[in-house]
């Protein structure tokens, strides 16, 4: 079925990303927005836009009925969920099906199957894919957890069967702490996912997080698009991703790729998806989970393969056969992504407020995926991800130095962002050498240089001196409702620091 109109059930950079793909395919894009997002970039970018409720996402972006109602009312044939929000909730594809809408993603059955961690583990084990040693069923009692941990050996990881995003996850180092950790994990899982089921697996100390991008059509054709390394993580949140991985050679890539294709095949999974693995220091890989959606980090794969994953998603959802064969997929150079968030770069505390000035990096090998604009007021209600910078280089070294250049060029004024943190990652010697794992973030130090201290002090003095001398008569303007405060007053508005 030819898709002419797509409702984008998301906001921020990914909603803009999808609207751009729609434009390039001649498809009408339909945005939805909460009251807080009336002037957000995705609303302005889309061809159409409909309000779906108050600012909290529980009353807007997460309300399936409103999404479906808007899609039907605006004559859309399909719904793209992006990532986050409803993207991995099987009730959305189910509701789409009931309303005669195409869901751009897997079937609700396949999504439910891979979303259940213990079911997915069993499936993969039966398919001969290595899994992390652990129990195969949810733990009925804390005592079961104790005996399982005994046989596997500490440290162990407690995880919610229905989990995701690090919630309901606890590392347990020794037997004395297991029972209380189990009780707390159960409570957290119940409150977060409405399902208290907990299972247990071996805790891998500082593995590498490496995932395989998959495309699967509705006719049984499945290909993989190489790996992404996402080991730069903080509290299970990825911060920097790259492709290819420094430790994946052709043989390992082939083996992981085949395992990922098999994982998708046995799950009956279609559309774009990602099979996540942990890789230990012996370069043995273990199935972690299937991400049943487009990933935040999909652009690094796009840059080295030349494939537009969002367009492929739409083509697959409309019933087309994959136009690409496995042999069409190569690796051209290297790509890195940094996620730019509205957070303090030291404390990672959120920072919201008005973007007073915005200068995006450009020039050779730089791609920006952004959900913000100048004069945009970053709301407190949603994920702090503002944008992503992705660089391409003929090799990893060039991609890294381009990323440093991009981070230097990128100016987001009025709020704090994680740009300075990313700079520190990029100059970290373990990161540069490629010899790093998921333990890298705490080791990244703020290597302050006082090289530019004098220049900075001179600049501060000039601004201090000028602000004293210039008497702005701007109150009248401000009350007229212009969003000009940031422009008019030197740097006076500065929520966030």
């Amino acid at each position, binding site marked *: 079925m030819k898709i002419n109109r797509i409702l984008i059930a998301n906001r921020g950079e990914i909603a803009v990303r999808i609207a751009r793909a729609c434009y390039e395919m001649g498809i009408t894009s339909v945005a939805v927005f909460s009251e807080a997002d009336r002037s957000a970039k995705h609303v302005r970018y889309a061809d159409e836009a409909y309000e779906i409720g108050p600012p909290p996402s529980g009353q807007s972006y997460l309300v399936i009925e409103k999404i479906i109602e808007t899609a039907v009312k605006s004559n859309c044939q399909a719904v793209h969920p992006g990532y986050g929000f409803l993207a991995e909730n099987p009730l959305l594809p189910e509701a789409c099906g009931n309303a005669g809408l195409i869901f751009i993603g897997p079937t609700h059955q396949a999504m439910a199957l891979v979303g259940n961690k213990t079911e997915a583990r069993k499936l993969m084990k039966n398919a001969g894919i290595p899994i992390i040693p652990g129990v195969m069923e949810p733990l009925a009692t804390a005592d079961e957890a104790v005996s399982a941990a005994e046989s596997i050996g500490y440290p162990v990881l407690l995880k919610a069967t229905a989990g995701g995003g690090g919630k309901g996850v606890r590392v347990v180092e020794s037997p004395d702490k297991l029972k209380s950790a189990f009780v707390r994990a159960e409570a957290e899982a119940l409150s977060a996912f409405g399902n208290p089921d907990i299972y247990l697996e071996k805790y891998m100390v500082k593995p590498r997080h490496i995932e395989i991008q998959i495309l699967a059509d509705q006719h049984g054709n499945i290909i993989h698009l190489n790996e992404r390394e996402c080991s730069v993580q903080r509290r299970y949140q990825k911060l920097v991703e790259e492709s290819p991985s420094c430790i994946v050679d052709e043989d390992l890539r082939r083996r992981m790729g085949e395992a990922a294709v098999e994982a998708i095949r046995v799950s009956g999974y279609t559309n774009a998806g990602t099979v996540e693995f942990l890789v230990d220091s012996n370069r043995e890989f273990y199935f972690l989970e299937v991400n049943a959606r487009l990933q935040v980090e999909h652009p690094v794969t796009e840059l080295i393969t030349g494939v537009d994953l969002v367009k492929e998603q739409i083509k697959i959802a409309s019933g087309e056969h994959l136009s690409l064969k496995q042999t069409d997929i190569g690796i051209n150079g290297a790509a890195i992504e940094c996620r730019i968030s*509205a*957070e303090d*770069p030291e*404390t990672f*505390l*959120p*920072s*919201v*407020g008005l973007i*007073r*000035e915005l200068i995006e990096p450009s020039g050779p090998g730089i791609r920006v995926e952004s959900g913000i604009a100048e004069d945009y007021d970053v709301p*407190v*209600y*949603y*994920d*702090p991800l503002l944008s992503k910078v992705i660089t391409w280089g003929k090799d990893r070294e060039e991609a890294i130095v381009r990323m*440093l250049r991009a*981070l*230097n060029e990128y*100016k987001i*004024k*009025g709020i704090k962002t994680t740009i*300075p943190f990313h*700079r520190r990652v990029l100059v970290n010697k373990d990161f540069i050498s490629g010899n790093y794992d998921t333990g890298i973030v705490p080791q990244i130090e703020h290597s*302050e*240089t*006082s*090289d*530019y*201290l*004098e*220049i*900075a*002090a*001179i*600049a*501060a*003095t*000039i*601004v*201090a*001196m*000028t*602000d*004293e001398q210039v008497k702005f008569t701007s109150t009248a303007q401000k009350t007229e409702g212009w969003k000009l405060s940031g*422009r*008019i*007053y*030197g*740097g*006076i*508005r*500065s*929520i*966030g*620091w």
Partner: protein
Amino acid sequence: MVAYVVSDGNHTLKVEASRLEVRPHDELFQIEIDGEKKIVSISRISPAHLSIIVDGKSFNVEVEHFEKDYQVSTRGEVYNFSVIDEREVTISSSQPDSGEKIVKAPMPGLVVEIMVSEDDQVKAGDTLLVLEAMKMQNEITAPASGVILSVLVKSNAKVNSGDDLLVLDT
């Protein structure tokens, strides 16, 4: 000639500046920094964005400030300064070690849970309340041991950065 005391906590610099000349595309300043004199060309791209050329070195500098707290960045480095007019420098009266302490919101957010109430005894590091912002729950902890004198916010209240949350007697 105006003089400012600029400090980032580790370094304190005395900076004197006087405008020598206003030209069509820049202004020339004489700067004396820790006794050393320089001629500096400043082009103000926007209020918070300066182009500085000194001895041929070119710097794009971003300056944001809230009252006397400045954040200055150039070439990827970020400096946090206090900038005080020399005439205003007095013996700084630091907050007393004991007495009433106001706990302020370190960021804007929604108060999702308050763990303490008036007259509660708390230890330094105890969680006082939870602020949610951008889908993250952030625990606000006691800066010192003491007794809660009053709780100034309610559950579900929206607060801005710097708003008073509680008063603690230490």
